[in-house]
């Protein structure tokens, strides 16, 4: 597929963006669905207006069926699962569907967030109705067109595998497409009864495999245009630094370098190709005004965090009298858990290609937030949002990094193209990515828990110290009105465990530092699950109760979590003996509307933690594509395990101490455990799957290490003491 040379797409794009006048209202009013509990999250609005089917589905006279994705494919598999939803209602072979990313336009706004974006593991549940309705609308129109042509009643027609059938007559959808397009859209459509589903629930192979195994898939970095130049940008070595002056003479002497231009984020070297641009940047001399960021030091910060963790913060959740319960208790466990800054480090470094004309701006990039990118580019160029055309390419990984409120890399690329007066692809090197911020925040949890006479916690007092990923962004005024960023405390303040603990309190110390922070796959859950699940494990051991049994007691009123826990424990053979030198650990966590339990089997070899096997059970409601769910559990586990065992971003003298994959370590193939995924059968509405696999793995491994060695590792990355 070429996204660049398809005239039909260009025509469609024009059509789709014509009605974009209302665009400006949308972006910063997302509802709080990302943070909603599972019980309410997947619920659709009562009587939603029917979608504009034309925006999502094209049936050509030659029979080609093309699905347009309102969300971005970044590996999570929606390139397959969203077409499945249409195919189900349309009665069409999903494997024959063509798929494209939609342009940026209001028709594609997220059904819950009011902006075009991909994140929070929301795509499947938020589109579960809309994409099925699109299929049903199209089917109804095709049936009506067939009925008219054949002179029969629509009720006498049925559909099967891309054709309308009436008696012995059979009309392919392509033959009916033009007629159907002339018909009025029905006011309502009925969706299939789940018992009649033929597509939803079937393990379905990815539709994007062919182009991803022969090198033709187009990622942002692969965009090619006539006269395209490439830029790399010299940015301040510490956050918040500004350019004092620069000397471009040596950079301009590099063959292939065309221009050196200043932009708000630094100095861009613009060249014929990447290699020249990078060499030019190496030769560039910039004098920086570093500012206060030069004092940043994570060792000192951590000491400060620990002090803050011992002081009162803002109360995020409370019931009963937690301090009182602790004061009365005979046995108190008082511990701290620490999580470092983390980079997302998607395999494709950030990049955006920008072409500016007098009346339009075209941006090619892999983004999770088309509406934000569109508005940012409009603001910089002085164009109207609908004059900014966002061409979403495949994303070489996202994990949250391609969803910034500041539209950071796209804004920068628009500035570069503007300053250079040329069509420019602005590319981040891997070093730029590792050192460029937007990290998962560093976090300290301090938890004090009192053990009751039954061994269960009688009191729980918990303080979280973290930077807010929303602070300073427009999201802050939307969600963090009370001064509490819900994503800093999600998974703790709303933990199902706390519902079983009569006296509990969760407080937040909101730390401000000049480090850009961002949602990193599973957001707050990436550290709260570690703290909650390790602490519960510590309490179970302190009480002398089996960790699975302990959790079952605390989760007596949480049937879905408990069922996931039971399934994982059973499939892992929780109570079965292991060879000497191995132990199991368990964790269970609810996030993004899904319930995941994992049992990790570990050993220690040469002082290193080895994870051999992970048994994962998930209840994500209706399993639209079981293959996607399995892949996303493997993926989430690998992502979380790499962080648990090896990743950290640290600062000294304001500088990030890591630079590339040699010192920012992520999981490698030899360290990938054998992962087994079991899906809890469910008829509940779908939850998310892109993120929920990540939170439980770090605590499951830490708990296994504790069982094996007696060492309780409370700081990530997990390092055994000698």
């Amino acid at each position, binding site marked *: 597929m070429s996204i660049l040379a398809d005239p039909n797409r260009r025509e469609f794009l024009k059509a789709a963006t014509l009605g974009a006048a209302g665009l400006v209202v949308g972006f910063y009013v997302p509802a709080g669905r990302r943070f909603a509990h599972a019980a309410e999250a997947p619920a659709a609005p009562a009587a939603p207006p029917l979608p504009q089917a034309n925006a999502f589905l094209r049936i050509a006279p030659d029979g080609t069926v093309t699905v347009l994705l309102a969300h971005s494919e970044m590996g999570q598999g929606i390139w397959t699962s969203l077409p499945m939803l249409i195919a189900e209602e349309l009665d069409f072979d999903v494997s024959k569907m063509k798929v494209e990313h939609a342009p940026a336009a209001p028709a594609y706004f997220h059904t819950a967030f009011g902006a075009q974006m991909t994140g929070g593991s929301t795509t499947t549940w938020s589109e579960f109705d809309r994409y099925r309705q699109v299929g049903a609308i199209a089917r109804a129109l095709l049936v009506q067109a067939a009925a008219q042509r054949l002179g029969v009643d629509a009720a006498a027609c049925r559909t099967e595998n891309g054709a309308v059938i009436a008696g012995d007559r059979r009309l392919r959808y392509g033959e009916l497409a033009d007629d159907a397009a002339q018909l009025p859209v029905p006011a309502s459509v009925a969706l299939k009864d789940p018992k009649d589903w033929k597509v939803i629930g079937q393990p379905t192979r990815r539709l994007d495999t062919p182009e991803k*195994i022969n090198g033709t898939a187009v*990622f942002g970095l692969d965009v090619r245009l006539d006269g395209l130049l490439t830029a790399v940008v010299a940015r301040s070595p510490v956050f918040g630094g500004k350019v004092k002056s620069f000397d471009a003479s040596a950079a301009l002497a590099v063959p292939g370098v065309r221009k050196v231009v200043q932009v708000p984020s630094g100095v861009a070297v613009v060249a014929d190709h990447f290699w020249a641009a990078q060499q030019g940047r190496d030769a560039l001399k910039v004098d920086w005004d570093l500012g206060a960021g030069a004092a940043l030091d994570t060792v000192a910060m951590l000491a400060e965090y620990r002090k803050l963790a011992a002081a009162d913060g803002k109360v995020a959740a409370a019931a009963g009298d937690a301090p009182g319960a602790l004061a009365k208790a005979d046995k108190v466990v008082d511990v701290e858990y620490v999580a470092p800054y983390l980079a997302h480090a998607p395999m494709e470094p950030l990049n955006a290609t920008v072409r500016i004309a007098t009346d339009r701006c075209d941006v090619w990039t892999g983004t999770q937030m088309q509406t934000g990118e569109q508005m940012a580019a409009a603001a910089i160029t002085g164009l109207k949002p609908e004059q900014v055309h966002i061409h979403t390419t*495949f994303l070489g990984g996202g994990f949250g990094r391609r969803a910034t409120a500041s539209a950071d890399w796209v804004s920068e690329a628009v500035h570069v193209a503007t300053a250079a007066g040329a069509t420019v692809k602005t590319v981040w090197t891997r070093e730029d990515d590792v050192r460029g911020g937007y990290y998962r925040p560093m976090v300290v949890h301090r938890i004090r828990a009192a053990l009751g006479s039954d061994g269960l916690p009688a009191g729980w007092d918990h303080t979280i110290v973290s930077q807010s990923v929303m602070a300073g962004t427009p999201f802050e005024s939307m969600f963090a009105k009370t001064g509490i960023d819900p994503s800093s405390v999600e998974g703790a303040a709303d933990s199902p465990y706390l519902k079983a603990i009569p006296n509990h309190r969760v407080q937040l110390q909101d730390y401000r530092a000049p480090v850009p922070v961002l949602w990193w796959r599973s957001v707050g859950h990436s550290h709260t699950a570690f703290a909650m699940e390790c602490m519960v494990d510590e309490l179970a051991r302190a009480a002398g109760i089996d960790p699975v049994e302990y959790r079952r007691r605390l989760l007596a009123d949480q049937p879905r979590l408990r069922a996931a826990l039971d399934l994982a424990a059973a499939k892992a053979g929780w109570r079965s003996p292991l060879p000497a030198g191995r132990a199991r650990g368990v964790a269970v966590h609810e996030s993004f509307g899904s319930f995941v339990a994992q049992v990790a089997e570990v050993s220690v070899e040469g002082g290193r933690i080895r994870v051999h096997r992970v048994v994962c059970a998930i209840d994500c409601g209706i399993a639209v594509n079981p293959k996607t769910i399995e892949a996303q559990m493997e993926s989430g586990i690998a992502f979380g395990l790499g962080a648990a065992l090896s990743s950290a971003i640290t600062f000294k003298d304001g500088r990030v101490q890591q630079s590339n994959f040699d010192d920012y370590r992520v999981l490698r193939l030899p360290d990938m455990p054998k992962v087994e995924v079991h899906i809890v059968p469910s008829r509940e509405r779908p939850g998310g799957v892109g993120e929920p696999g990540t939170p439980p793995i770090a605590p499951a491994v830490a708990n296994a290490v504790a069982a094996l060695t007696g060492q309780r590792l409370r700081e990530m990355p997990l390092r055994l003491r000698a």
Partner: protein
Amino acid sequence: MKLRVNGKDHEVAAPPDMPLLWVLRDLLGLTGTKYGCGVGQCGACLVHVDGKPRRSCMTDVADVAGKSITTIEGLSADASHPVQQAWAEMDVVQCGYCQSGQIMAAAALIAEKTKPTDPEIDAALGRQLCRCGTYQRVRAAVHRAAELNQEQKS
């Protein structure tokens, strides 16, 4: 200088120390070979030079002039290489960005070892990074590709 890529000769005007990766991508338009780290740490840029795996980001173009270079675009005309077949069968890819490198590394391995063992797979693909965590399927698909390769030969 002359460069032979996927069986085709190209005359390229590049500085001798320009990495092969950027010659392929920016001068020849062969964008299937990916940039991930630029320092030989991730393997996204892996190609074959005279049939052997090579990290193109660490290879000066002058060093491979006159040699036979194969990129993902040239592995097969129709995705029929056993590694590509196995990859499709096992639904390996996710975001897909690292997969050209994974596939090229796997193809070099099964050309060398008829039936690679897990430690041999670790050694050959242990430094091919994937942030989506497709590793379990990569391993399974390498085994499957070796089988398909044997079936096709016999």
